[in-house]
């Protein structure tokens, strides 16, 4: 193709891509056009001004790529959008759960302020009180205001609204989150808990685990006791998650971890990290298999199931 025609075509493409929001593609075409112009400068009379305007375009394109990348994944939506989230993304077959499911959906879509309002309404309903309370704490954390979570907890502590056992669960949840965040606030424990300190509490087990409570887990920390007073924590990224089952890819160099687990091992101390919050819980190793082909040959694929959060 005639060089001038080619340049013209590249610039035309770049314009159209840009107008469609295909900024990266637009940038590529501008850069190619600029290179062609430089190479053929002596045949192009107005090459200087052309190059100048192209480099301005490249700057603009880069700027909008940067803006897009920095765009937060969440944004406060109109009430209309929130109503759709609340009503259309509550999938429970159990009609009684629809309200709390709707509130959880709002939190999943980052509508924390509205989700908090909904959870607070649900606190009045005994069956869902604990779940709502836990989610209130998580929402405060997700909004990155741990102080609000602490204040909320302290309010509950001074009221008789939540039964001691539930308050104990909230206490553990929040204390754990704070620890993970490197915040050294020490929460005062509810009386019931203080008395039985040291005893581990009955964990909610898998059947009681609500699928909606399982958010996307991005990584896990697994603490394995090594000697009486020593333990080691292994951190892994999640390679895949399906419901409560999490798949981890583990290098064969991680002997010590692989040695301590097999199918059926209960991992008493598992930390689940999700984009919204962190939870401490229990998990069960459901399968361990060596990868026999492909680029990850020799690594191990380990499935663990969340037992309680």
């Amino acid at each position: 193709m005639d060089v001038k025609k080619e340049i013209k075509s590249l610039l035309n493409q770049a314009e159209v891509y840009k107008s469609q929001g295909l900024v990266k593609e637009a940038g590529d075409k501008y850069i190619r056009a600029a290179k062609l112009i430089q190479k053929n400068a002596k045949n192009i009379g107005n090459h200087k001004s052309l190059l100048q305007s192209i480099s301005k375009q490249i700057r603009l394109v880069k700027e909008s790529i940067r803006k897009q990348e920095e765009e937060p994944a969440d944004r406060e939506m109109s009430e209309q959008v929130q109503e759709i989230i609340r009503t259309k993304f509550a999938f429970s077959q159990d009609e009684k759960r629809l309200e709390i499911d709707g509130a959880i959906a709002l939190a999943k879509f980052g509508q924390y302020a509205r989700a908090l309002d909904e959870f607070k309404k649900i606190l009045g309903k005994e069956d869902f009180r604990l779940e709502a309370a836990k989610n209130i704490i998580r929402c405060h954390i997700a909004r990155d205001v741990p102080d609000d979570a602490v204040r909320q907890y302290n309010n509950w502590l001074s009221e008789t609204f939540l039964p001691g056992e539930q308050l104990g669960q909230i206490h553990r949840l929040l204390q754990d989150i704070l620890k993970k965040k490197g915040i050294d606030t020490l929460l005062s424990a509810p009386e019931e808990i203080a008395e039985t300190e040291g005893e581990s509490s009955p964990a909610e087990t898998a059947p009681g685990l609500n699928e909606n409570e399982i958010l996307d887990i991005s990584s896990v920390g697994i603490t394995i006791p090594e000697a009486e007073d020593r333990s080691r924590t292994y951190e892994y990224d999640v390679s895949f998650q399906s419901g409560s089952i999490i798949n981890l890819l583990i290098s064969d160099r991680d002997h010590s971890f692989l040695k301590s687990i097999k199918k059926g091992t209960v991992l008493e101390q598992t930390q689940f990290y999700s984009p919204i919050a962190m939870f401490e819980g229990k998990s069960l190793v459901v399968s361990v298999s060596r990868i026999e082909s492909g680029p990850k040959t020799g690594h191990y694929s380990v499935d663990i199931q969340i037992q309680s959060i």
Partner: protein
Amino acid sequence: MANINLKAREIEVKIVYYGPGRCGKTTNLEQIFKAFRKQVTGQMVSADTEGDRTLYFDFLPMGLGKIKGYEVRVQLYTVPGQVKYASTRKMVLREVDGLVFVADSLEVRREKNMLSLKDLHMNLKDYGLTIFKVPLILQYNKRDLGEQGLPVMPVSLMERDLNRQLKVPSFPASAIKGEGVAPTLKACLKLTLQSLKKQLGW
């Protein structure tokens, strides 16, 4: 499966427009909103970024009248196409009954089409569905750009890239001009209702 309310004799069907970023999903819904006045039962609601990229979804409710005494309501959704909104995309896909995969005819988006189809495949799998069985229509959008001299893939190439194994109905379209939008939707509704009837044993 679709949400069936026996008491109210209502069936709610969920159709999702899927595809890579900027391929024209939202534009499809905008055109449907204009062209299907009679069937549209409410406002089109868009949850988008400050630009016009979809952040969570677009939503458009429609009514198809009665089938066997049941009022059939259809909810159209689009997903956000940008790669980084993977988790929202998956949430929007939940409990889908029928799908339109919108592919971008621009050559520069060839790989993105394929990646997005694969992403759809994986997400469906996570929900226990298979892309080979779910009611699915392909749309090859932005055909008009070829007429403007931009490098656009021939339909035969897109068929080979995307539809070789699926073998589902496919339509060329120029959503911005409203072309091909209605046939795509109608074909998807037809497949979806067929599959629903089969599931209900009607």
